[in-house]
């Protein structure tokens, strides 16, 4: 049995905002299936009572003081923009309201 279906791969592509063609999806589905089967080995070893580690080092409470620093000039901020207008980033029409 495969670890991941073609449909799931297609769903993942939408979630990841990747417009992939059918060939690419087919190819990826096979590779992901192989990789997921390999990495599923982690399930062999980690018992329930093992706490997870999200950060390499156990640092806590790193804060900065509430001080204003210089911002970029708007020209710098917009310099890399594919399109800009009225000192704003121009983006294609947005389909849905904010999530």
């Amino acid at each position: 049995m495969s670890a991941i279906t073609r449909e799931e791969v297609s769903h993942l592509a939408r979630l990841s905002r990747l417009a992939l063609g059918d060939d690419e999806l087919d190819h990826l589905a096979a590779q992901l299936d192989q990789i997921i089967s390999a990495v599923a080995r982690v399930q062999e070893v980690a018992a329930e009572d093992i706490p997870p580690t999200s950060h390499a080092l156990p640092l806590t409470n790193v804060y900065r003081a509430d001080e204003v620093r210089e911002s970029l000039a708007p020209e710098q901020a917009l310099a890399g923009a594919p399109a800009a207008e009225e000192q704003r980033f121009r983006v294609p029409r947005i389909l849905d309201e904010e999530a």
Partner: protein
Amino acid sequence: MTTPTLMDYDEALAKYEPVLGIETHIELGTASKMFCGCATGFGAEPNTQVCPVCLGLPGSLPVTNRAAIEGIIKIGLALNCDIVEWCRFARKNYFYPDMPKNYQISQYDEPLCVDGHLEVEVEGETYRIEIERVHMEEDTGKSLHVGGSTGRIHGAEFSLVDYNRAGIPLVEIVTKPIVATGEKAPLVARAYATELRELVRSLGVSDVRMEQGSMRCDVNVSLMPRGAAEWGTRSETKNVNSLRSVERAVRSEIERQAGVLSDGGRVIQETRHFHEDTGRTTSGRSKEEAQDYRYFPEPDLVPMAPSREWVAEIRASLPELPAARRRRIQQEWNLSDLELRDVVNAGAVDLIEATIAHGSDAAAARKWWMNELSRRATEQGVELADLPITPEQVARVQAMIAAGELNDKLARKVFEGVLAGEGGPDEVVAARGLKVVSDDGELSAVIDQVIADNADVADKIRAGKVAAAGALVGAVMKATRGQADAGRARELILEKLGAS
């Protein structure tokens, strides 16, 4: 989409019991943003308060603003929450053009503050609203939708994005389900939002201005048939940008959902948007794909473990909270429940208190703010606090009244002058020549003239009809453009006519 049938509110409440949930976002008023040093001022030129961090440029990293954490802890403590000993930020992943990293730094299953409550009062009854969590996150940028007819998102040809707001610290306060409020549900929702706003304002951590978006409510509503044990499916209404809208949105959703249910339909779990103009909600998103935010611990930020000492320090620094304060001023100012409510609803508590602090007595301070000044605020369509007059100036006017230099009528003219930008009370008095005329010589001459002009009335008084003196006092006041001391004028009239 078919237009749903709305059910009459009373009928809806007869059949269904509403369950509410309110999620409130509050922008903190820190000097700099949540994770970078950009300024946070409202209304700046677009994209002038941005840097590599809040623009999400490749390679940039967030660093947490300590003042924001202190601010949220203040809110948590004021809401009677527990402040957890250890928690992490999490990334909430979804794509949206106004969110520079396409993930929001937020908190997921480890909120900083949990299990609180806030008591609110509606028509003499107290409701305890349970708070599930208070967590820290960052705000998004703002899009301007261009083209199309409405200026709204639908039909727009493109959008222009300003990231000044992106990364401003945002506190989210989530209630537990609010049940058993019956037909009062809309009022309870509004009272909660009002009380929360007061509370946060009193802490000094946000200006909580709903019209500027520094406080925003999402209202969850579901209905269950009366007597049922299971809750219905809820909708989440966003864009609720005033206290009045909170009330209207709840009411509107009750009417809509009742209509849907009684037509045999099913309420869909969805995001809806409230429209101020129609007072109705519309469906917000085409839900082809269920949202999957793929939360995971934010690796760029280390966990927070606020020490108990720090929390105790913050607790000790909390100001008097609105509920305690209301109890105190009711007693000190000797107010009835109704008077207290009016003062609170008018947003006049701070103003009156400051006026008293500048030497006015409580009754006078309340009188001016609640009557004359409230009326003028209403006329101008502004909040009382936004009138261009200070409590100190109100106290000065009242001091002049107490000294006999002004009467109430003149005082109103002084307020008029101050509000018109003519200067402070003393300047207005001087410039307009507003002074009570109590000098007997000057007044006497005016009275003589008035008696001469109104011989018939004078005769009646001489004949013992003392009540007629009022007409002559009125004439004196008119002749002096209100500047006479009316009491003294009456004494002099009666004296001159031998009726005293």
